[in-house]
């Protein structure tokens, strides 16, 4: 799982349309057949990040700076009751985010 990250290439000329009007849909990064949004995973579920949506928003920036980058492994630890935030494990630590925020992160569960 470690080597995956290092060989990861950031430049993907074929995946982005030129120009600033590029959409913020999930960019193709390997096989995304099994990709689901992070909020839809059950507690205990996990996988590899395939994309972080929301274009160039500050939220996207922060999520990436906190280690939720393409190729990183994420596991859902628990979900707060009544539709509250979810707790995830990423890069060896725990982070909480609201479900709406988790929706922007696409996960390849490997199934």
């Amino acid at each position, binding site marked *: 799982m470690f080597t995956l990250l290092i060989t990861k290439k950031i430049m993907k*000329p074929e995946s982005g349309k030129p*120009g600033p009007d590029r959409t913020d849909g999930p960019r193709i990064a390997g096989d995304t057949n099994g990709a689901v949004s992070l909020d839809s995973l059950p507690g205990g579920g996990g996988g590899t990040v395939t994309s972080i949506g929301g274009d*160039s928003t500050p939220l996207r920036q922060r999520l990436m700076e*906190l280690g939720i980058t393409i190729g990183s492994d994420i596991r859902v630890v628990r979900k707060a*009751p009544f539709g509250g935030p979810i*707790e995830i494990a990423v890069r060896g*630590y725990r982070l909480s985010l609201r479900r709406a925020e988790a929706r922007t992160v696409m996960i390849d569960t490997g199934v």
Partner: protein
Amino acid sequence: MAGGRNPDGRAGGASGGPIPPIAVVGNPNSGKTAIFNALTGLRQKVANYPGVTIEKKEGRARLPDGSEVVLIDLPGTYSLFPHSPDELIASEVVLGRYPATPVPGKVLCVVDASNLERNLYLATQLIDHRIPVVIALNMIDVAEAGGITIDIGRLSEELGVPVLPTAASSGRGIPELKAALAGGANGEPAARLFELPEAAQRECTLLEGELLRLYGFRPAVAHHEAVSLLSSSPEAADTTGRSPSAPAINDEELLARVKTARDKLDFLGIDRQSVFIEGRYARIRQICEKCVSTNGFAGRRLSDALDRVLTHRVWGFLIFMALMTVMFIGVFTWAEYPMQFITAGFDSLGAIVSDTMPPGDLRDLLVRGVIAGVGAVVTFVPQILALFFFISILEDSGYMSRAAFIMDKVMGKVGLHGKAFIPLLGSFACAIPGIMATRTIESGKDRMVTMMIAPLMSCSARLPVYTLLIAAFIPHYLILGFLPLQGLTMAAMYVLGIVMALAMALLFKKTLLRGKKLSFVMELPPYRMPSPRSIGMIMLDRGLVFLKNAGTFILGVSIILWFLSAYPKVDGATPQEQLEQSYAGRAGKLIEPAILPLGFNWKIGIGLIGSLLQREVFVSTMGTIFNIGNDGDPESGVSLQERMVRDRDPETGVNSFSVLTAICLMIWYALSMQCMSTVAIVRRETAGWKWPVILIAYMTILAYTFTFLVHQGGLLIGMG
């Protein structure tokens, strides 16, 4: 040290003047403040809070080479590209462009060894900004206990900067860290750590050069601005990330160049936002693979077990409620004995002074002004200490973020962020640290709402008022044989504040501060044993600030009030008549028509006026007024409560206070904005008078309306 020599003669400051300070940065929960405390001990300059927010804490450390250096403790941050106002302060100081702060000669970056990857993000950013860095690999003991082994020599080699293992809680590695901070041996890091894709690197270097040429930025700032210009989208007005003190980058030619560079990178399909982040994390992963080995996942086992209970959907809520209850009961019961002790101390001090001094104005001033006034307020130090004791345990242990986690949905119902819970809870002790704690809320609007309602939480300064009035007017009575009426009245005041705060939050969110819900991205650190040292430091800090306040501001107000209530002298008047004729009595009478509908007479009016700037002054004012107004011997041991109960208007024979008056007064104090320090802090945090004025206006209207309704309603049902 006088002269501030720079041991190896390296040009540390601009002109060989004082040694430039060392900025201490680190991720939240990295133990940064513990390292700062271990390095500086008690030699800290704690910011004074009336009017001054605790933006940076400074301390002095003596280094092994004999030099003394100033350390600046900065707010925790995850990145040099800030997302919240406190992160902005950290990055601005580090970049050397924070107003009235010298450019740091070095940066001490505190890194959590048990959470290395994410912590190295900030550290490598500093290195890539070519800022001279020393890394404290803190909580090395926690990492070792969790089965993480770090090759420190290798890590230092990979990063190109000194890395020192530390465990701030036990003091391990602190002497070595001091040695590494001494002198100027470690200069700027030699090289950037990670390579950008060629096109991005080229544009970045070009832009840096232009910024250096056009604006004369230092290299770190030029790099910073180049990266943020390239990575932001043209339309994104990233207001939090922009420094208000940085010069506006508005050179037409440069902006055109930025646009071309962005277009070029976009055309190449480079994600300008992620390119600066993903490459860094990939490099960090490489470094960690070389330097870190783990055996198993023992690290979080205990923490996870605790979390299964503490954030459980049922148990979590129940435990949360239980903890809050314990906290309040603890604050009231624990503080009771020391409070009685302090009261007795001030009483006997007053008696000694009365016995030893000849009667006259000076004795009156000392006994009735100074001792009675300050004593009444100092009595509340134990409560403040107890409250900060609990809050610092909750914070230090990591429970606070769990509380925010389970409360986010509930807080969301009134449009508040889960993180708002922490500042609001803190406001029960004092709105000032509470308002300062709102800096952790990233969204400006959410933060503003929290700031606006925080002063409605019944702070410890209201406690003296509640305690005095409840003890005097609410009977000792057990409802159903076990629920004390006095305690319930106290609880009702807290509930009133909370309910009003939530209602106002909703109102603000619907009107002045409308905005979409913002992010709740928050770290849940592993549970830790709170360190007695840091708890002690926080309690000491709060206690001293309060005492300093009592010794200056409250002392001054007490003396002025004594003067206003003792002068002008009327010959042959009874003490009662004297008070009525005094300046204070006249002012009280002047506002009586406005406050009579609330059930307050002119004597209470004096108290209201006296406590306009600080609500706890009400107690000392009452102490002064009813001491003077007392016909008999003021030292006869009749308590203030009894004097207030007995006090009546000599003409009408109507008592100054009834139970209804006492209730109305408590409601008034629960809802009104009588705290100059809070107003000052809000003005500072919002950089203007708009919000403080709104705060004063809405709270005064709220307090007047409610007190009026309760008083009139009370009269209708025959109370009072």
